[in-house]
């Protein structure tokens, strides 16, 4: 296996994240970032929301949502930098930034979700 790279792993995360974000993100964004702030729909109260995210199952849902989407985004962003901006010579730094960012976000998500009272 040594001849082959770890790309399959990253790609699997990318693909899973691609599906998760494609399925879930539009509705999330629409509700929380557009419809509620603009008053198109009545938002649930903050207490209700907090109650909603408290059950372990919902925490897992949110964790997976954040984790996979982040790795999807990081992977894609990495190649956008490579190809779109043609800065492939900065390979190492880009990798650290992209996947490092994703790892950081994932840890933060885990921490926040863990700490829900």
């Amino acid at each position, binding site marked *: 296996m040594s001849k*082959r*790279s770890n*790309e*399959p792993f990253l*790609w*699997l995360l990318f693909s899973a994240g691609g599906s998760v974000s494609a399925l879930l993100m539009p509705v999330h964004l629409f509700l929380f970032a557009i419809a509620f702030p603009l008053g198109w729909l009545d938002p649930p109260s903050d207490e209700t929301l907090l109650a909603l995210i408290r059950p372990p199952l919902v925490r897992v849902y949110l964790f997976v949502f954040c984790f996979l989407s982040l790795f999807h985004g990081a992977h894609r962003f990495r190649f956008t930098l*490579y*190809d779109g901006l043609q800065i*492939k010579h900065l390979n190492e730094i880009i990798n650290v930034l992209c996947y490092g960012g994703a790892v950081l976000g994932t840890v933060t998500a885990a921490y926040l979700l863990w700490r829900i009272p």
Partner: protein
Amino acid sequence: MASRITIEVTRYNPARDPEPRMTSYEVPLHREWVVLDALNCIKDHLDGSLTFRWSCRMGVCGSCGMMINGVPKLACATFLSDYAPGPVRVEPMRHFPILRDLVVDTSDFLMKLARSKPWIIRTVEKPADEEHIQTPAQLEEYRQFSMCINCLLCYAACPIYGLDPQFTGPAAIALAQRYNMDSRDEGASERLDSLSNREGIWGCMFVGECTQVCPKHVDPAGAIQQYKLTAATEWLKAMVLPRGAK
């Protein structure tokens, strides 16, 4: 229909010219003429030094790929009349070094093709007079990918290849996948060793242009994605299964 049409052709002789330049020629516009006929007309009657490749003029030998009005196409399968009243711009295939006029250096592809191991690999050979049993359904699995005429239009279309000449590229990967999917072959793992890397399948960003321009409907974009899926599955299996259990 106008009876003549102007063609602008890239002229470049590296021995003499600092830069490629465009030259215009006027040729007759016949209903049954393709761009290749116009080029031959120029070569026969106007300027014998115009240089381009062609042979079969029936879309199977894959020699006559060019950029026609900016799109990679076979010159022998592109009617002039579709571009009337003109002018038609004919340039060498993008992303390859120009050798002369419309002729580009494609030796890089041949090297990559060989690296994809496009031949049947088996652990035990069949006896000389015995056929493999391969049902029409099994044939269908890879038939589409076996239609590649190596015209390299897909390379001229793929921006990733343009950005990174190391990238194995659509046709060579599609041909590797053609053998992977062939029920007579046992070489998938060997091929994966040379293609599962950043220069191989993982370099493809699924731009999809390769499939758009392919004159033989090979769908290299699909081939590569399917290849990625199998490669990732293989990887998972290797992770999950204990060593030696494979």
